[in-house]
Each structure stands twice: as structure tokens, then as C-alpha cells.
């Protein structure tokens, strides 16, 4: 074996060792904190009004309602950030208030169940994949 070939061989085995270590680290270290795919943070007004940001889980709602219920009947626009949702609307039965009325789902008195986000969260969609799509806004 020539010297150069030996060096190349050592290099390749080193690379394999490094890759192995990375693989092992990924396999053993618990997954970091991560939002569920499609989680939405609403914080256009919440913190300004002295409340925690709202976290809306799409996954929980789509088990029970098709997209068209909220995005057609209730009038939520599809694009994150394009809906001006104020607490008054909800109390009067618009947007979330159509279901969160104490009949279909918990009523507006359970503030902390929706206003549950960490302070300072920016509004947007979370849990997205590595594209430039809305998941990264």
C-alpha cells in the first residue's frame, strides 16, 4: 500500500468513526423540544392585552372537524397571520367562539387552556419541515 493510499484509508475510516458517533448521538439523545406539525401560535394581540400567547393545535381539531368547518363555515382564512381574531369575537360566538361555548368545547372562562404559550412567542405556524413554506414563517 502506498503512503497516499494509507492516508486516504485512514481518512475514510476516521470519517466512518465520526459518522458513527453522530448516528449514535442521534439515536441515544432524546429528541429536543418540538412543536407538533401544524401548531399555530396566535400572539398578534394576546400579550399586548396582558395574556399569554394562544397555542392552537391543528392535529387535535382535525380529528374532530374537517378543514372546511373552520376555514369555510367559520371564515378563518387559510394563511397564518391573516385573521384578526379578538377575544370579543370569540365571546360573541365568532371564530373559536362558534364551538368554544361550553356546549361543543370548553367555554371562554377556561382562559389558560388556550392562552398557554410561553411569553414572547412570535405568531405563526410551528412544527414545520425544512422548507421555506409557512412552517418556517
Amino acid at each position, binding site marked *: 500500500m502506498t503512503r497516499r493510499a494509507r492516508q486516504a484509508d485512514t481518512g475514510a*475510516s476516521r470519517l*466512518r*468513526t465520526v*459518522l*458513527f458517533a*453522530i*448516528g*449514535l448521538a*442521534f*439515536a441515544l439523545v432524546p*429528541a429536543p*423540544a*418540538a*412543536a*407538533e*406539525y*401544524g*401548531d399555530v*401560535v396566535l400572539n398578534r394581540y394576546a400579550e399586548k392585552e396582558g395574556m*399569554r400567547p394562544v*397555542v392552537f*393545535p391543528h*392535529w*387535535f381539531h*382535525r*380529528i*374532530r*372537524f*374537517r*378543514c*372546511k*368547518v373552520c*376555514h*369555510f*363555515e367559520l371564515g378563518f382564512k*387559510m*394563511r*397564518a397571520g391573516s385573521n384578526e381574531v379578538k377575544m370579543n369575537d370569540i365571546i360573541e360566538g365568532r371564530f373559536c367562539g*362558534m364551538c368554544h361555548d361550553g356546549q*361543543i368545547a370548553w367555554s371562554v372562562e377556561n382562559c*389558560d*387552556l*388556550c392562552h*398557554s*404559550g*410561553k*411569553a414572547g*412567542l412570535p405568531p405563526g*405556524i*410551528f*412544527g*414545520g*419541515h*425544512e*422548507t*421555506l*413554506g*409557512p*412552517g418556517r*414563517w
Partner: protein
Amino acid sequence: MRKIKSVTHAFLSRQLPVLICLIALPVAAQQQWQPIANDGLRDPAGPAVKVLQPPGEALSQLAPDTAGNQVRWVKALEQGQIHPLSSLHADTKIQTYERDMLLNLRGGMPVVRFPHGIHTKWLDCSNCHDHLFKKQAGATKISMFLILQGEQCGVCHGAVAFPLTECSRCHSTKREDALAELTRGAAETGVPLPATLPTAMAAPLPKAPEPAK
């Protein structure tokens, strides 16, 4: 024999770590359902984390997937694992439309077969038409560049519907199969295919099943 053994041994000792990496990385990269307190959004000290259902509890019961919520939502719906309501008011008009569209007929990637049927199970026509896509086939130039920026299909795919990493779920049809289908449709209806193929066309309607005798 000994040579085979030593070659096998050499191969395993050299390649095994790489194999393990190749297997471990995608598994590790796949996002696991996190408990509510560990989702990075909710305040772990707040009352909600004790009350709200953790995603894994519900989603692990549904048709599994490798991306997004790790749920095949359409399969879960079609197999009756979930029963989401279509409307809240009795008088809301539920609109559905079944026709498939063949998109990207002149592009480099395989042809996109867009199923209106599956989309209208979840959505209303007005969710996409006409502000995202004009109803007329080919009238809206669809661009992967825009989709990746969260426009057009990317309004949902990449945010709540299966993500844009799953190329072949949309780019699913071989070009020659799409052309054969359009040619067959043209022969059946007597409307000839245009000399220059447009970028998008409605797929021919499937033959109505023979009435049972």
C-alpha cells in the same frame, strides 16, 4: 470458504458503522410526538400542560406515516378511524368534486395527479378557487418555487398537510402513463388532444361501472 468468511468479516467491520449511521439518522431525524410540556410552545409551569391531551396519545392510534403529524390523515378518514364533522350548521352546502387533474404535463418531474375528490373531503371549493388557483385548467401557472415559499399548494402542504419533502406523493404519475390516459380519453370522447400539450389537463373520467344485471 475461509476467504469468503474473511471478506464478509472485513466488509462488516468496515461498513457496519456506516450502515448503522444510515439506519439511525433517518430514525432519529424523524420527529417524535412530544409531551405537551416539551413542545417548546406551551409554558411547562402552566395549567394547560396537565389538562391537554398529548398528541402521541391520539395520533399513535391512527394510520402511521413518516412525515408531518406521522399520520396518514386521508387513510385515517377513509378507514373510519376518525369521524370529523363536515359542518356545524344543518343548512351549510357541502360541495364535493371528483375529477383528477393532470398537472406538470410538460415539466421534468413526473406528472402530478391532483385528486379533487380527496381535497374536497376536507375542504370547500372556495378554499382554493379562485384566489389560489383559477378553475380553468392551465390558467394558473403553478410553480414549485412559489409552493416552497408557502404559496399555492404550499399554503397547506408544508404547514398542516403532508410536507414538501414527500415529492412523489404529488409527482406520482409517469409521463407516458399520463399521455396514454389522455389519448384514451380523447378517443372515447372524440375530442382530439391539442397538437401542443398544455401544462395541465383534466384526467378523463373513469368509465361508469356496468350496471349489475
